């Protein structure tokens, strides 16, 4: 019974995935305005040969800043969880 159920879920999900994937053509649209602009002007405007870094740190610098802040906040949460306990203090669930 469990095998039949699992196979049914697998088939339904696979059919949905194939349907969606066949609907969107791969690599289209082939010509967009944005990447042409970056390739034409990116090296001159940012001064970097690696255009990916140019977009990350120059055109979209604020996004990178907030991404770094997200990582910092995650580590802050982990640090609070693993902090050194004070004298006589215990975890609540012990």
């Amino acid at each position: 019974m469990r095998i039949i159920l699992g196979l049914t879920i697998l088939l339904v999900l696979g059919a949905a995935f194939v349907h969606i994937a066949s609907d969107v053509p791969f690599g289209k649209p082939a010509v967009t305005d944005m990447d042409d602009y970056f390739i034409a002007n990116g090296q001159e405007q940012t001064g970097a040969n690696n255009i990916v870094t140019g977009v990350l740190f120059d055109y979209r610098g604020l996004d990178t800043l907030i991404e770094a802040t997200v990582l910092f906040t995650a580590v802050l949460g982990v640090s609070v969880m693993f902090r050194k306990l004070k004298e006589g203090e215990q975890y609540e669930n012990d």
Partner: protein
Amino acid sequence: MRMTKVVRTVADLLYPFCMIFGLYVVAHGHLTPGGGFQGGAVIATATALLIAAHRYDDVSARVKSARMKVFESVGLLGFLILGFSAIILGQPAFRNWMLSRGSLFNDSVAFGVNPGALTTGGLMPLMNLAVGLEVLGALTIITLYMLSGTKEDPS
């Protein structure tokens, strides 16, 4: 459970090479694929290799958690200062003002496919360094805390 001597020796041997490769990826972030985030992740992986091979007491003497916290904070603070330093000069935030001023990383770049030079990019190499420091500190702290939570056999 303690790793065998083979694992510990190979980890000690591989550690400097991983470190150098990560620093290379960070320093050449504006020329070759990679950048601050990827290079910092590679350096943190080297440290994680060391942490996975040794016991907590041996590692925590070499990789100090307090130092990693300083790295992380200095990286994020440096990125903030570099990003908003353009405002002081009367330009929009995250403008690459070092390109036009005659200072450190201001060589012009030829158009098209070329190997490039390290002295280009304006603020970008410094930002890569800051983000690399931040990611290195953050990922190492997570791995170190993970190890400190596991119980070690007294053997």
